[in-house]
Structure formats: C-alpha cells, structure tokens
C-alpha cells in the first residue's frame, strides 16, 4: 500500500482514524523505507531534539578505574601477534606500576577535611549567626539537599553553638557544611552530601584526615561526616546523637 506524505503527516499529527493508523503501523513493520519517510516527516522530533540535545551542558564526569591489563590483541599473524602480546604485556606492566603508584584522588570527605582544616576560631567568630540568617541558610541548604537537616537536634548538641550552614558542591553534588563553635570557640563541623539513590550505604568509619578527627557514614543516598575541632580526639558524643538523628 502506498501512503502519501499528506497521509503520513496526518498520522503524525494524530488526525487519522484508527483503521488508517493501524494500516500505517502494520506497513512500517515490513517497510524500512516507509519507516524512514515517516521519521523524516515527524514535526515533533526536531523540536524535542533541539530542547534536549544540549543536555548535559558539560561532558559528564565519569570515574573509571585505570586501564590495568590489555587483553590479547585479536590478530591472525603469528610473528606480529607475538610482538603484539609482548607489547601488551609491557603496557600492562607499566599500567600496573602507574596504577599502584597513582596519586589517590581525594574523595568528598578528604576534600571537606582539607577545607575544614583551614578554619580557625577567627573564621567563625565574626559570622552572623542570628536566627534570621540561620533560618535562611537552613532553608536554602535543605532545599538544595532535598532533605531536612533536623536543626533542632543540631542546636541541642551539648557544648556546641550553631554558627552557619553553608552550601558547597563536590563534583556537582550538593554538599552542606554546618559549622559550630565549641566551648573554646574552636570550629567543629558536620557535613551532608547528596550522593544519589544509587550510592551504597556505609557504616561509620573514623579516621584522622588533614589532622582532624573525622567520622563518616552513608545511608539512603546521603553521605555524612563529622569533623572534630582542633585537638578533639573523641567524637562519640556527637556521633551518637547525629547517627541516630540522620538514620534515614
């Protein structure tokens, strides 16, 4: 059956009756040329394409493991093949050495610790911590993260005064840093990052990073981190409260 451009266009615009539609759809199954004609006449496709083709604006970041070993080269020649295998082995050896000695790229927790380690009492002494500015900061931060920050629980942490909630970003993911002053005016921080629903849950891990005692865990798509104040070695008090508060 032959279909005119007008008929095909009417199909695409939804103005043909049911029988005519079925006839075109049945014909397309058998006829690649008809399929191509229909696709090229579709007035919707270029409009939608134009809107979406610029996305994402930047080439997305993908973290892949280094190339460790080259698989044997598919080849037919015996002599060249041997050279190929030898070369592949040499490349693999170099790649392995590079992999073993590669600088470890800091993750979000390492990066947050580096940043926090630059804080001194003066950094937070002059912050405007009025209820009004905290209200605005928390509202923005919670919107960015897409979850509550349980401000009541944060304000009730013993020995810590809430100073500021600041929005940061790590590899395009929203990261909120909440800073407190301890009894000596030393900065203490709690960070939350939205990692996305595919991120695995992780149990609490304590470590010294950039000279600060830290504890990190991850649950339900969010990562959490405590960064102790200068000289603080025991995070158990805060950790107990926050682990319970941010358990889901």
């Amino acid at each position: 059956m032959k279909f005119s451009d007008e008929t095909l266009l009417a199909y695409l615009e939804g103005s043909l009756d049911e029988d005519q539609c079925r006839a075109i759809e049945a014909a397309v199954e058998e006829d690649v040329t008809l399929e191509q004609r229909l696709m090229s006449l579709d007035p919707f496709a270029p409009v939608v394409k134009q809107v979406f083709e610029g996305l994402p604006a930047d080439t997305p970041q993908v973290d892949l493991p280094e190339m460790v070993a080259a698989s044997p080269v598919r080849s037919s020649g015996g002599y060249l093949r041997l050279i190929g295998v030898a070369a592949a082995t040499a490349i693999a050896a170099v790649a392995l050495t590079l992999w073993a000695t590669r600088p470890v790229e800091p993750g979000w927790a390492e990066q947050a610790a580096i940043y926090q380690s630059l804080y001194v009492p003066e950094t937070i002494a002059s912050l405007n911590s009025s209820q009004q500015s905290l209200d605005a900061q928390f509202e923005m931060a919670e919107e960015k993260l897409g979850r509550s920050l349980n401000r009541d629980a944060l304000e009730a942490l013993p020995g810590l005064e809430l100073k500021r909630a600041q929005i940061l970003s790590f590899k395009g993911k929203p990261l909120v840093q909440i800073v407190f002053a301890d009894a000596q005016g030393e900065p203490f921080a709690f960070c939350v990052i939205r990692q996305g629903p595919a991120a695995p849950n992780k149990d609490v891990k304590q470590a010294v990073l950039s000279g600060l005692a830290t504890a990190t865990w991850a649950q339900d798509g969010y990562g959490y981190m405590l960064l102790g104040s200068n000289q603080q070695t025991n995070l158990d008090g805060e950790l107990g409260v926050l682990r319970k508060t941010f358990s889901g």
Partner: protein
Amino acid sequence: MVGEMNSEQAVRGAIQMHSKRVWRFGLALSGTSDVADDLLQSTCLRALERHHQVTSYERLDSWLMTICRSIWLNEVRARSVRRAQALSVTPEAELVATGPDSETNIFAAEVFTQVMQLPEAQRETVMLVFVEGYSYREAAALLDVPIGTIMSRLSNARQKLKTVMQHDLADTARRSGK
C-alpha cells in the same frame, strides 16, 4: 595487525563518545539529573566489567543504553520513584532554559516539562527516537517491545506534546516546505 583495538579500549572509547547520550537516557528514565549522574557512572563501570562480552564494536551506544536501562529497572527504580514521590519532584526545567532569549527559554522549559511529565514508557521512547535518532525498529530492539508499541507510544506522546508545540509546529512545517 597493528592498531587493532581490544574490547576494553573499544568500551572506553564508547563511554567517552556516548556519555552525554547515556546521561540523557538516564534523565529520561529517572526524571532527575542527580539520578542520571549515578546511572551514567554505574553504567560505565558495568560496561567496563563486561567488555569481554562485546563481540561487535558497532552500536556500542545501544549496548550502553541497554545496560543503563537494566540498572535503572533492577537496581534504582523502586528507590528513586519512592523518593521522588516523597519529595514531589518537579521537572528541572532550568536545565534547558539557559539561552539569552527569554521567549525561547520559556518555550524550551515548556517542552522539557511536557516531555518529563510523560509516562516513563513514552518518555524513554521519545528520548531514543526523537532525540537520539534511533529508528523505530532499533528502539523496539533496545526496549524489547514490538515496533507497533514504539509507534503507539510515540503517537500518545505526540498528542500530549501537541498543545505546547502547536505554535512551533506551524513554523517547522513551513520551513520544511510541507
């Protein structure tokens, strides 16, 4: 032969070449850009683990899309949909409204929102055919449905997109001389 690629190199190359395309498909599946980020990352890692399974270097893009969709359906979907409902997520139209002309931005944002509000099956089909240019039969193979299903999904999607597009459609039709 010197210069012949092995399958791992081919997969790495495909990842580099098609990362935007896989991200867009992840966006169409999940409806949110941060899930699209995660889907892309998981897809690339999974593809790399499975590079031995690659028998032909043609259409590695379809292979990546298939992996992305299977990760979405089997591992991420249930959790994401629950979360989206809890947060009542709205389409991130600001992603496309970035040009200097505000009228164009408004139109782009409307089209974006309409597409993102289509049911998931129509949305993924629209993305593959309208945006990525897969033919109906290629999309049918990728989504594992009959070609007629692809066509009827597109027809349903066109009906919903019609209202927002009617002004622009007139222009397009004029330009293509139809």
